[in-house]
């Protein structure tokens, strides 16, 4: 399935390879492990969704890849991040700057805070063009206008000389996308790109990202909490809970055959247009534990309806249950069984 979906780029080597990555935050009093040993790959041209609730470490993952963790609090304590074979976790800052913004672009959640309020839109887009592509200032501005036109901003020749406060939220997000895509990156990291936007604008932005992605054949890591967006845009999905990846697989695997109790709970608890009105939704009981209160073994153990004794003693490893589907749960067979009944 995955191979089929990725047919537009038959590259076998992964573009991004995250291997046993752990990220720690030193607060002075204690060390908090925000991400615990996660591994995943993204192939060229592929869209991978990273899903989880707030505080599960999805944004930290993105920031770790870009080496944008808050300094000096956050650090990569273990593991490696390889982009096209280059280890980003140990790269010097000067070399890193060549990759950031040119080979890897990033879209942030809040377009209002991601842009500099005292610089014109045109200047902010030309910045990366001048830096990475060595364009002259007038040429860069000309290119900025073309990019703005491509992301669907009306009358871009006027908009380049405007400031962020003069544009609406949806238009600003288009500007942020324009900056991220200005150097035609190989990988785009989109951290909740539409969460701050209205639904009709969200549909426009997702459509835009997809068509640009297809056009430029770039890979995307889409971070979101919305399973609907994942189902509509991604090839593969990683489900994160409390700093760990608990399930990963092709979109069809995850939605047709969710095998981790957390994934199942998430999918079942979304109100849909098709569910009868005023019916009670199935819920995941309890709440996400605080980072310092994570259970020792399986982190979902205290909320899980399928827990067995083993769950509080051992951490389950990610286990391959089909060609494209991995899950970290001791009881996944029972869970699949209980689903089919």
């Amino acid at each position: 399935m995955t191979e089929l979906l990725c047919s537009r780029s038959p590259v076998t080597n992964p573009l991004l390879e995250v291997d046993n990555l752990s990220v720690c935050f030193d607060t002075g009093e204690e060390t908090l492990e925000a991400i615990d040993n996660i591994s995943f790959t993204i192939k060229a041209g592929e869209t991978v969704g990273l899903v989880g609730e707030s505080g599960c470490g999805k944004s930290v993952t993105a920031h770790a890849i870009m080496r944008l963790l808050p300094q000096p609090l956050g650090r990569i304590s273990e593991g490696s991040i390889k982009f096209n074979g280059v280890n980003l976790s140990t790269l010097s800052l000067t070399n890193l700057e060549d990759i950031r913004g040119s080979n890897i672009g990033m879209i942030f959640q809040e377009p209002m805070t991601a842009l500099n309020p005292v610089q014109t839109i045109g200047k902010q887009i030309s910045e990366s063009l001048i830096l990475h592509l060595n364009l002259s200032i007038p040429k860069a501005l000309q290119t900025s206008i073309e990019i703005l036109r491509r992301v669907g901003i009306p009358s871009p020749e006027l908009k380049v000389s405007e400031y962020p406060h003069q544009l609406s939220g949806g238009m600003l997000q288009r500007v942020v996308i324009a900056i991220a895509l200005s150097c035609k990156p190989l990988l785009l990291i989109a951290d909740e790109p539409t969460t701050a936007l209205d639904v009709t604008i969200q549909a426009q932005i997702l459509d835009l990202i997809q068509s640009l992605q297809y056009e430029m054949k770039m890979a995307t890591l889409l971070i979101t909490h919305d399973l609907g967006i994942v189902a509509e845009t991604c090839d593969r999905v990683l489900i994160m809970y409390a700093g760990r990846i608990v399930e990963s697989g092709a979109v069809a695997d995850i939605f047709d055959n969710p095998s981790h109790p957390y994934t199942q709970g998430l999918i079942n608890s979304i109100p849909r247009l098709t569910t009868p009105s005023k019916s009670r939704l199935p819920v995941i009981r309890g709440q996400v534990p605080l980072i310092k209160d994570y259970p020792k073994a399986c982190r979902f153990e205290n909320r899980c309806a399928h827990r067995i004794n083993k769950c509080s003693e051992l951490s389950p490893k990610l286990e391959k249950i089909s060609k494209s589907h991995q899950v970290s749960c001791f009881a996944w067979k029972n869970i699949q069984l209980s689903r089919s009944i």
Partner: protein
Amino acid sequence: MASVLLEVKNLKKHFPVKEGLFKQTKNFNQAIDDVSLFINSGETLGLVGESGCGKSTLGRCIVKLYQPDRGQILFNGKDVNSQNKTEKKHHHKAVQMIFQDPLESLNSRHTIEQILIEPFVIHNIGDYKWRLKQIQILLDQVGLPSDSGSRYPFEFSGGQRQRIGIARAIALGPELIVCDEAVSALDVSIQSQIINLLLDLQDELNMAYLFISHDLAVVKHFSDRVAVMYLGKIVETADSDTIYKKQKHPYTKSLIDSIPTPDPHCIKKRIILQGDIPSAINPPSGCHFHTRCPKVMPCCKINEPAMRLHSSLHSYSCHLD
């Protein structure tokens, strides 16, 4: 047939936009323009629309946080704007509100007990001992541990804080609760817990809800009837199944189309609306939606469509048939 609890008639609220050195009123933000709706007792009316469409303003007018410019709000048949002092106090008791951000709407320097006892103190109900007992019942009803009373809001998670807000809202046995984006800031797994809690409380206490949200899927799931708002006007109202299956207004249709479906096999042919939501300060002429409407006709730019009754519970405002 349930009796009408709340009726809003031709409500209008315009906010002055002040500009310049002397803060002169240059313009008006037409937050709500000629809105009419009703809520039966024990029923849930969902109010859905994008940011800036006036849905929160309408909610705030109903709980009397804002004074409307024109129009009537009838609660139990009585106009709330001509109430005397006792009637006003009764209105505040009978109509409560749950806010979007539970941390901002709870006093961070008060314990949960102090927060929950306040409604009883203000309305002078019961003695101290009775109030404490009542708080225990409330905490139990909303599913909070019984020792929460002595703790402060920051000690709770987002979902639990929202439960505190709900406990405060139901404390005085209201007839109507205005839920302004009450579940929007919560995570998916917590959101479903709170939705279930609100539904259970409604069955138990027979309250009506005005459920305001931007998420049509949540609104459709939660409500008996749904009203869709666009730029200060209600464009369509119907029961929630009709809104989903037989909607008439092109805006409702495109709202439904833009919700991403959590099913990878469902391939949608969606109409994506072009352009941004126009500003409410200077709304488009004629039908407010004509600048983005996929089915716009010449008459839409000139004439404002009137609300049409399609069936007893279904009305919409569009020139299309």
